[in-house]
Structures are given as structure tokens and as C-alpha cells.
């Protein structure tokens, strides 16, 4: 196993910058998820690490070697592809043996390692089958086996679960996590599903438009998103972002909505707003931090329920405030009807405030 360092990594296609100055360090044995929407550069970044496409500038270090100009085969990596990329003409056994054959291992050693990998992944009975005779989950497992049979320095995984159905995905998710814990493997894992990233990774790198937005533990990213993009991307349902106007009334800092309502900020939040470059402030609130009242309460903001979505565990109520959709979760025993008048109360301790111009999170000092 080894650590991986990306330093000022850039990849351009003509005038299009697919990856922009991405720098991050993956420590030995760490599980890092690259997460972001389609086209954010996460898969390109992974392919750069793999050496499948040449880098434009910057450095990639795997272990203690700069691997910028090395062929994929010389980087001591293994990769699991979204479509598994199993060799269709080869049996499962030969698929697993291929990386070892290419490294010219003796035949009996290959046999031993393949059988060991098959045992670990519980697919000894599948060794003679061809990939097309396997189910999606089994193919997935073979792809994983082909990666681990070689004991590489780094595992690269490109959306390995996105072709599985929902149930199998949850199952394989925990299997990969277990696999990481058992092997203490260094894993770089690309996904567009923030839930996968949050549940599996030690650290997540949120990307957008080729830029690395935030690189931290899932808990930190969840609790302290650096900007509006990260705030809205991580968490499901997404954090509600409500554009508001900051002003001062009677010496107190106040936020006002487009409908004319306003509420007073706590001293700490007031300090954050004072640091904004503009009077436009965006309030971010996760569904669980907003309280719903059926009658007027001091500090609560009047709104109309727009849709009500019971999920069994919780019921999500959506309402419009200042032109933005606000998502609130309530216990299932609280009955709210669409178009019913409701009052929403924001938790000053857990709300996020963003600069309306720069979209960056506002800090207290």
C-alpha cells in the first residue's frame, strides 16, 4: 500500500479545462471518494492517476515515485471500471489470472493467488464461467477480484456500483467498505452519488467544473460546507438555500425575505453576515434543522405547504420562501396538507450563511 499525492494537477482539452489545479493527498490506507456531478472532472482525475490519459501539467506521486510519465502497467495500481471491463472471451479464472500472467508469475503461484481471491470473494464455484454467464453482482465481484489479486499499491474505482440495482448496490457498498477495512487498502473511489461517498469514504473530495471544492472527512464536509455548491450537493434531500437581504434594525442584524418577513440573527450569525462582501446573504438549512409549527410562534416565518411527501420514517414538507424551495422533515404523525398555512423556525446554531456574491460560506471572524 502507498500514499498518493496530486499536486497542481491540470488536464486541458484544447481550451477546455477538464481538471484545474487539483491538489490533494491520499494517505496510506485511506479511502478517498471523488464526488461531484457529471462532467466535474472526477473520472478524468482518476484516469490521470491511472495513467490512461496524459497529464497537461502538475505531478502525481504514488508511493515515493513521481509517476507522471509512467505507463499504467508500471504504476502498481488496480482499477475497477463502471462497466466492469471483464475480458469476455476469458473465463473468470483467466480474468483473475491475467494481471498475474502479465507480471510473469510462475504458474503455481498464479493458481494459488487466483484461488485465494476467489475464496475471499466467495466465487470459487464461478471460476470456469464466462463473464456473460454471471449476474451483475457476480461480474462486479470478479472485477473486484481482478483488482485485489495483484495486491497493488492503490485501488482506483470508477463508479463501480452504479450499474447495480438499488438493493445490490447497498449490499456491495458494505462489502467494499469491509474490503477496505480488512485490507487497509488505499482506495480512490469516483462516484456521483454523494450518499456512497458519505457512507464509505474516510475523506471526500467534492469537485465541480474541474475544480476541487472541498477535501475533508464526510462529517466535516456535511457540517461545514465551504460554499453553496458543496452545501447543496452533499446531503439528501439537498440543503435548502434561501436568498435573503441583510440589514440592521435597532442595532440588530436582521435578514429579510422577498415576501417581507424578517428575523433577527444571533450575535455569532450577525458577525458572519458583517463579514459578507454584499448585503445579499443566502441562508442554508438542512431539512432536519428547521422546525415546523402549525400556528404562529415568535421568530417563525409564515409559509404555505406546497407538497407533502410521506416516506414512512419521516414526512418531507416543501414550501416556497423567497423564491426558493425549503425542505422540512417532520415526524410522520404530524399531519400537514398541501396549501396549508405553516410557520418555519430556523435553528440559529445549525444554519449556514453564504455570501450572495462569492457563494462562499461566511465565517464568524
Amino acid at each position, binding site marked *: 500500500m502507498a500514499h498518493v499525492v496530486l499536486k497542481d494537477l491540470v488536464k486541458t482539452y484544447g481550451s477546455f479545462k477538464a481538471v484545474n489545479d487539483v491538489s490533494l493527498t491520499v494517505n496510506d490506507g485511506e479511502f478517498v471518494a471523488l464526488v461531484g456531478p457529471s462532467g466535474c472532472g472526477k473520472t478524468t482525475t482518476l484516469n490521470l492517476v491511472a495513467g490512461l490519459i496524459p497529464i497537461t501539467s502538475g505531478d502525481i506521486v504514488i508511493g515515493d515515485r513521481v509517476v507522471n510519465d509512467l505507463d499504467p*502497467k508500471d504504476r502498481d495500481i488496480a482499477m475497477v471500471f463502471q462497466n466492469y471491463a471483464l*475480458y469476455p472471451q476469458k473465463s473468470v479464472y483467466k480474468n483473475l489470472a491475467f494481471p498475474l500472467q502479465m507480471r510473469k508469475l510462475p504458474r503455481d503461484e498464479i493458481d494459488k493467488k487466483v484461488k485465494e481471491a476467489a475464496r475471499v470473494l466467495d466465487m470459487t464455484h464461478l471460476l470456469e464461467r464466462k463473464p456473460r454467464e454471471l449476474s451483475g453482482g457476480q461480474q462486479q465481484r470478479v472485477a473486484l477480484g481482478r483488482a485485489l489479486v495483484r495486491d497493488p499499491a492503490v485501488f482506483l474505482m470508477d463508479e463501480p456500483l452504479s450499474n447495480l440495482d438499488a438493493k445490490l448496490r447497498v449490499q456491495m457498498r458494505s462489502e467494499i467498505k469491509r474490503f477496505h477495512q480488512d485490507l487497509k487498502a488505499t482506495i480512490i473511489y469516483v462516484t456521483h452519488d454523494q450518499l456512497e461517498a458519505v457512507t464509505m469514504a474516510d475523506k471526500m473530495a467534492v469537485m465541480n467544473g474541474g475544480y476541487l471544492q472541498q477535501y475533508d472527512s464526510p462529517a466535516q464536509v456535511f457540517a461545514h460546507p465551504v460554499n453553496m455548491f458543496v452545501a447543496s450537493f452533499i446531503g439528501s434531500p439537498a440543503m435548502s438555500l434561501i436568498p435573503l437581504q441583510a440589514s440592521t434594525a435597532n442595532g440588530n442584524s436582521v435578514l429579510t425575505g422577498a415576501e417581507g418577513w424578517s428575523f433577527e440573527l444571533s450575535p455569532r450569525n450577525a458577525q458572519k453576515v458583517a463579514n459578507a462582501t454584499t448585503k445579499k446573504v443566502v441562508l442554508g438549512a438542512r431539512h432536519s434543522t428547521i422546525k415546523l409549527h402549525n400556528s404562529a410562534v415568535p421568530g417563525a416565518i409564515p409559509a404555505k405547504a406546497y407538497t407533502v411527501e410521506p416516506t414512512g420514517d419521516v414526512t418531507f414538507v416543501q414550501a416556497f420562501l423567497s423564491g426558493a424551495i425549503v425542505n422540512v422533515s417532520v415526524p410522520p404523525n404530524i399531519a400537514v396538507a398541501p396549501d396549508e398555512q405553516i410557520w418555519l423556525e430556523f435553528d440559529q446554531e445549525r444554519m449556514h450563511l453564504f455570501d450572495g456574491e462569492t457563494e462562499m460560506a461566511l465565517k464568524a471572524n
Partner: protein
Amino acid sequence: MSTTAEIAPRGLSRRRMRVDGWRWAGRIFLVFMLLYTAVPMIWMLITSIKSGFAAMQFPPQWWPDEPTLASYEKLLDPQNSVGQDFLRFFWNSLFVSTVTTILSVIVAVPAAYAFSRFSFPGRNFLFFAVLLRNMFPAVIFLVPLFILMRLLGLMNTHGSLILTYLTFGLPLAIWLLKGFYDNIPVQLEQAARIDGATRFQAFILIVMPLSTPGIIATAIYSFIGAWNEYIYAYTFLTKNDQLTLPVGIQRFFSENTTDFPGLMAASFMMSVPVVVLFLVLQRYFVRALTEGAVKH
């Protein structure tokens, strides 16, 4: 309520009748096509086992009174002059077609792969330029190629034919194979390269086996093209010992009488390699090798 109930079954039966009508029209058409293609072949076979006299009789003998393999014996007998000629023509055709096939696969495989996998300046232009030759009838190039071959000193050599057939067969071979390579997921090669293969090894070990059906289809296509070609062989070759089968068979039309059983026997033997090739290799056309490689 009752009206809809009445209309529904009638509409249904009318639709079924129409489908049946089309299906029968299709069957009749196919039977007609079968007769159209098979009858001349059968007649060729029947004539080839007749005697020279029986072949000329009218009304024709549908089945010869005295079937004989004399024509085949004559053609395959290296002792007499007809047999010597036929075997030499056969060998010439086999040589020209085989070399054409091998060369066209050798050129088409990397060319198609490059068109499929790499982006380079002028890629689209080149790809369509490859087809330029096929936009004109082959005869148009007869005189220019004749002059070119004379300049190159290739007149009366099999090389002139091989070169010509390559220019005819390659464009389609490249297009056909590119389609195959486009359908092989690039991730297979990437996986192989990460698993320790060089780019070339990934191509040879992973991509080539998967494109076997395409390569075989391409090979058959260029073999048959070269095997059957007449006009260029007729123009470029004048020496008797170099002629290919299509031109050679023409010798059975002599000035006074035509040896029809001999002609038909030669034609039949000429079609044998093509048919055998197809029967042996046709399963490759059908085999969907990439099935199960990736999840679509």
C-alpha cells in the same frame, strides 16, 4: 357499449388477416428468390455431369441418361493439357486471392483500429477519403491503373492484380472493422493496460480475439472479391500460365464448339472454395462475442 364490443373483434381479425397476407407474400417472395438463385446452380451441376452431346440436346434432359464425371476427371488430370491449364489457373487464383486477403487484413486491422481509437488531425477527412475509390465504377480505373502498372513494371505479374484488388477491398474492410472496434469498449484495453499489458499487448491479447468475427468477415469479403474478379485479370495478364480462373474458364468457349459440361464443371469447382469458406466460417458472423463483456 354493445357497439364497441362488436367492433373490437372485427378490427382484431382484420389486422390478423393483414399480417397473414403480408407473411404469405413474404414467403412466396422468398421461394421465388430461392428458385432464382438455386436453379442456375443446380442446372450447372446437372450439365457438368452430362456428356458433350447430351448437354446440347433439345428438349433438354432434366437428368442425364448417362451421368458421367468425365469432365471433372479431365479437369483434374495433370496429364492432359486441359487439366494442366485448369489446375494452373486454379493455383494462380488461389495465390492471388490468398495474398490479397492476407495483405488486406494486415493493413485493415491497424487502420481500422486507429480510426476507431485515436483522434488525430484529418481523421474524418481521411476516413471518408478512404471511400473515394468506391464511389466510382471499377472500370473507370482500368486505363489509369493499366498505365500505372506499366510504369511500375508490374504488367503480366500477379502483383498488379494483388495491388488492384487491395485498393478495391481495403476501404470496405476498414469501414467494416472500424464498426467492430467501435463496439469493443475502450475500458477493456484500459483494464488490460492497468493489469500490466503494454498498449500493443492489450491490442493483441484482448482486442484482436474479440474482433475475430470482424476480421474473418473482412477476410472472406476480400477473398471473394479477388477470387471472382474478371476485367482487371483479363486486362493486366496476357501470358497463358499466369491467368486466373475467371479469365481461364473463358477458354472453354472455343471458336467452333463450346464444351459446356467442361465449362460447368470448372465453374462448379471454382465456386467450391467460396462455399466451403462460408460454411466453415459463417458461425463467426453470428457469434456475439462481446455479449456479457460489459453491462449496457
